[in-house]
């Protein structure tokens, strides 16, 4: 499996009144061909800004990519002209957003929004584009696609709009889809439908996916590999199995322990991560998680831990105490 997307030392900063926010702070990760990779973290951790940076959609002038490379099929997207970049968006990399209503045009018919990309990117004739659009709607499980093409987004339910977004993302047969919180705005039963659909389609067409989410449950079922982000940095990465069975960063461990789970006996009390999420304009020196961390030692307050290998499976953790954490977690598990 070759590497499809490789993000190297990406830095995206925002200038605010209270100072420079390093939303993405020297972050590197990659996605292999037909692989599903997750970026997980809470609000403000930099996961969405990472995706926007790849697509070069960071809102200026406050936000700016200040360093790094985004190699997609070997080409650095950050060096392309705006014109060349437009051919990448939608054509080679599809996008699915959290709130489909705000990312669809309310005054254009569903059909028009689907055919536009097909005509521009693939050069299809209007008739061909319409036929292909109906096919796409059918593929994502929208009944009666011919009639649906002439309807408008407000006539679709939330779940149908998200199906329509998936159809749009797939329309030009991209090799990568970026999905930013694709099911967060949906009800649980609809969420299950959409996730099954995305998984099925990505397998069927061999599309690679980058799923950005705060929901650890969603990630468990659908991702091959997981990157956990905190305060603009990746603090742990590994296969989904490794991350869940053997978390080696106190933040990952805290996230996993803080959620009540239906598959476990009910606990008398939940185990939250204490303290507040980090203020990115006033990060502490050393590891950003130190103020909330139960495992911190003196070194954590002065020296930022780099990502280091935990074992031979590609599992890495940015924690000085990763080994102690491993021993302790094993002791708890046995």
């Amino acid at each position: 499996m070759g590497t499809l997307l490789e993000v190297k030392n990406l830095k995206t900063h925002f200038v605010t009144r209270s100072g420079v926010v390093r939303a993405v702070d020297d972050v590197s990760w990659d996605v292999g061909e037909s692989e599903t990779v997750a970026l997980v973290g809470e609000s403000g951790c930099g996961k969405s800004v990472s995706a926007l940076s790849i697509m070069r959609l960071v809102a200026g002038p406050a936000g700016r990519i200040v360093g790094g490379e985004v190699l997609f099929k070997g080409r650095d997207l950050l060096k392309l002209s705006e014109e060349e970049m437009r051919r990448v968006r939608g054509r080679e990399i599809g996008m699915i957003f959290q709130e489909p209503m705000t990312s669809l045009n309310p005054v254009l018919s569903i059909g028009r929004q689907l055919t536009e990309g097909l005509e521009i990117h693939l050069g299809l004739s209007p008739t061909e584009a319409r036929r292909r659009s109906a096919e796409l709607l059918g593929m994502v499980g929208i009944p009666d696609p011919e009639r649906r093409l002439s309807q408008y987004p407000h006539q679709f339910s939330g779940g149908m709009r998200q199906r329509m977004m998936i159809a749009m993302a797939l329309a030009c047969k991209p090799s990568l889809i970026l999905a930013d919180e694709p099911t967060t705005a949906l009800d649980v039963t609809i969420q299950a439908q959409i996730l099954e659909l995305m998984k099925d389609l990505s397998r069927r067409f061999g599309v690679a996916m980058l799923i950005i989410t705060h929901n650890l449950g969603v990630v468990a079922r659908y991702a091959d590999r997981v990157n956990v982000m905190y305060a603009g940095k990746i603090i742990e990465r590994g296969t989904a199995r490794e991350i869940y069975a053997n978390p080696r960063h106190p933040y990952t461990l805290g996230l996993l322990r803080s959620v009540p789970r239906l598959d476990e006996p009910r606990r008398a009390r939940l185990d939250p991560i204490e303290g507040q999420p980090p203020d990115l304009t006033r990060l502490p020196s050393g590891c950003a998680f130190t103020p909330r961390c139960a495992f911190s030692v003196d070194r954590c307050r002065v020296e930022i831990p780099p990502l280091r290998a935990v074992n031979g499976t590609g599992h890495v953790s940015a924690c000085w105490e990763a080994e102690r954490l491993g021993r302790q977690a094993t002791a708890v598990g046995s």
Partner: protein
Amino acid sequence: MKDDAPILEVRNLVKHFQVRGGLFGGRAGLVRAVDGVSFEIRRGETLGLVGESGCGKTTTGRCILQLERPTSGQILFEGRDLTVLDEDALRPIRRRMQVIFQDPYSSLNPRMTVGQIIAEPLAVHGIVTDRGRRATRVRELLSHVGLLPQHAHRYPHQLSGGQRQRVGIARALAVEPALIVCDEPVSALDVSIQAQIINLLEDLQAQFGLTYLFVAHDLSVVRHISDRVAVMYLGKIVEITDRKSLYDSPLHPYTKALLSAVPIPDPVLEAQRERVVLGGEVPSPLNPPPGCVFHPRCPIAIDRCRVEVPDLREIHPAHRAACLLA
């Protein structure tokens, strides 16, 4: 400290909304947001009310608080039927019932300091008239919800989401209510903060003997916090029982589907799980299906379900479900 007398009894609650469609406001329709809902909550208990968007759970909460006047039915709070009272008679009762909203940012006045926000109900209801004593009481309330005295001088935008929700809770506590309707109180918060707020709600319940109606869509959170749980679908309760029975042996096919749709944060378990993925979507409450409202999506529906409306009947002691096949 649960005592057996119900603090709240909802009897056959109905709330319909008139809607006008079309360009000229003609073709009026009727949204059956809540369509005959009955339940009770005992003092000191937490009743979880779960369901998907549009099922009527929030409207039910708003009717109880008398923020919406019900179309019909009774709401007995501490023995008095609120639906027959006028605004003046309701005012003292409103103190006894408070609400915590989902989004603390839009429910806190951005131009007031945290101290003013918490002190306002104390002044409005004439609970603490002396300004100095009000400031003392505000500090006390801040400490109950895990905030510091200096937070009183901050504005909502200077706080994190979790801290704002703590302010919302302090404001609700200020008037010493007996019942708090918690409407999705943690769903807008980050995962690491949700657990803090849930623990806080549980501590406050134990400390002040509060009764909660906990309205939410997250079944894992509801299991954690509730003593009993009611599941709503399209304006009706389809199942209601104690927590253990609902999660260990659900009877209604909708409850079963909801439970199986909840993702579990464990890739190995997830891969082995058999799940019931419901087809279709929730029908419009403007035009609910005949018979059992769930039949168009139900994996086990039979012909009778298309015509016969199932009663919410007691299948096992204290376990009621509205399904002909339960």
